[in-house]
């Protein structure tokens, strides 16, 4: 089968439902919580929407809105330039990332039971090895997605999960991040929580290891994903092009997964 045929077959399979498309994106809404930094620091804007007109005096025949948000609002993509460790890499912003990286296979490591028990759960190298023992070695150039079912926390307070010591959400350990980059050459890391790093990631070494190592190695991040429980452990393909923002550090985006059967 040549590539033209391959593509036609793919399109046909999508049309007939032989290949399903799963939406991994949270709806952009003012109700979806925004990452919270200490108040004296700069803040990423939450999603906000203002009506331009709604079939009224401001525009009699049409309805439309203006919206505002940050590059890191809602389900979003992190480019290497987001972190200081990736600031000088080539093709490190959303407008210059090679587009073939925006369509790539994904592995989904299921940690939802551990996260239910411990909101500060850190994905370990042992978890990755156990995954590979069951599903095969993680291929180079793959996304690794951490399924925690965190996206099922629909109440923003439960989703953010703050207490007096800060945020408590799951993420990867520093060792797991290095393993994925150095031993498996992954494309990036994806999470259901509000960041790719754990809520307590500031206290890890280095602080925010997933951001620090992934972006330092030119890899990407996806966060605020959902529906990871609908994906197979391996074999899905993600389509996740961020907006082409000049020198953008990231962007809200629609993340779609192609799933065979």
């Amino acid at each position, binding site marked *: 089968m040549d590539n033209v045929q391959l593509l036609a077959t793919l399109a046909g399979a999508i049309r007939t439902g032989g290949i399903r498309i799963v939406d991994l994106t949270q709806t952009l809404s003012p109700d979806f919580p925004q990452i*919270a930094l200490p108040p004296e620091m700069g*803040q990423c804007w939450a999603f906000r929407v203002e009506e331009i007109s709604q079939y009224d005096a401001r525009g009699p025949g049409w309805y439309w809105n203006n919206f505002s948000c940050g590059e890191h609002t809602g389900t979003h993509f992190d480019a290497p330039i987001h972190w200081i460790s990736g600031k000088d890499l080539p093709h490190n912003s959303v407008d210059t990332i090679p587009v073939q990286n925006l369509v790539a296979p994904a592995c989904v490591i299921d940690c939802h039971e551990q996260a239910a028990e411990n909101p500060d759960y850190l994905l370990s190298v042992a978890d990755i090895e156990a995954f590979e023992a069951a599903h095969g070695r993680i291929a180079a150039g793959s996304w690794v997605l951490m399924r925690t079912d965190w996206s099922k926390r629909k109440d*923003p*307070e439960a989703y953010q999960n703050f207490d007096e010591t800060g945020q408590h959400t799951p993420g990867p350990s520093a060792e797991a991040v290095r393993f994925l980059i150095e031993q498996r050459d992954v494309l990036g890391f994806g999470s259901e929580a509000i960041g790719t790093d754990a809520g307590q990631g500031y206290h890890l070494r280095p602080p925010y290891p997933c951001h620090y190592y992934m972006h330092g190695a030119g890899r990407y991040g996806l966060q605020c994903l959902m529906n990871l429980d609908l994906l197979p452990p391996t074999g899905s393909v993600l389509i996740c092009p961020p907006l082409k923002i000049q020198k953008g550090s990231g962007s809200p985006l629609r993340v779609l997964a192609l799933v065979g059967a």
Partner: protein
Amino acid sequence: MTMPLLKPRRKNPVLRTRQMNVPPGARSRVALGMTAAAAEGRFALQVCADCGAVQYPPREACHACLSPRLPWREQSGLGTLVAETVLHHSNDLFFRERLPWRLGLVHLESGPTVMVHLHGDVGAAPQPVRVGARLDRAGQAILIGFPRDEVPHMADDKMLREMTHDPKFRKVLVTDGMTRTGQAIARALVDAGAEIVWVGIAEPWKRHGSGLDEIAKLPQVTLMPLDLTDSRSVTELAGEIGGKVDIVINNAEIHRTFGIAARRGLDAARAEMDVNYFGLLRLAQEFGPALKGRSADGVVSATAWVNLLSIFALANFAPHGTYSASKAAALSLAQCLRAEMRQAGIRVINVFPGPIDDEWNQNLPPPKLTPAAVAGAIVKALRDGVEDVYPGDVAQEWLERWRDDPKVLERELAAGV
């Protein structure tokens, strides 16, 4: 003795809600001097700078010596009720709907004889009384004859309650409960007898350690999601409770401590404007119409709107420069809101505190206002029916310097005095 106001019965929902007809509001430019003083809770009359004559009603020239030099001076209001009458008929719609109505003539110790509305606790003439100025539902100064001494439940007098905004039995929205000031306001309203205090919370995940959980335990308090940066949130809350709110207290604010050079970029300044200015605009567009529609709805009608501004709204305090600018914008918008709400008889009260003793004023030296003092000033303003309040020593001093010469104050502030 005034009968204490009893908790009113629930409204019959099939009856039409009575609409407001405001009392006569026309005043000459000179007469507005009395309104300006009453707006701050003072009873002032023109006192001739040349011959000392006290004059009423206000005029362009002294009735005794024709001097045009007639500064307004605060009056004690002590006098004698010399005549009284009870209106049983009026062609003015406001009074027609509130008959019978008691009026009197008071001979003031300072000289003039003035026309007053009579408090129910003032006995038959002749009678010693104390005259005070209040704003009526048209926002204009009127004079009231009070008994010389305080009597129980004075605030519950039917006539006086038309001029004031006592929170007793009323339903109040406080727009931000995440701050100590918001919590103090909610507590003060509960203590003042408010029936319901809705307390807005934005970003509820930040509530830990805020003190919010303490006021949430009060039976009168109900927490409501409200984020003034989010138009949809404001619209939704107005849809839910707008038709029941009698008093809006907009205390939500963002306060950062930067001038122009101390912070790169717009993020902090924009966040301040988004809450302090656009937040007020969003709130006013959504809650304003509902309040206006209920301003004559019985003894617990919709009645007032309170804006927590800052004394920095009058003149820029450069170390908090962008905050000052946002409060100046809010003050301007609050004046617009007042102009629009006055037509419906809703009072807009602007509160201009000096620095409040909170985290963002941590580096300012005392004196600083406690949150409880701010809350107390707001409740007092509602009870007194004033328009502008400058609580605390710092605010009073700034106000005095600003009135004396705004340009001089600008220079002093720039020099850090």
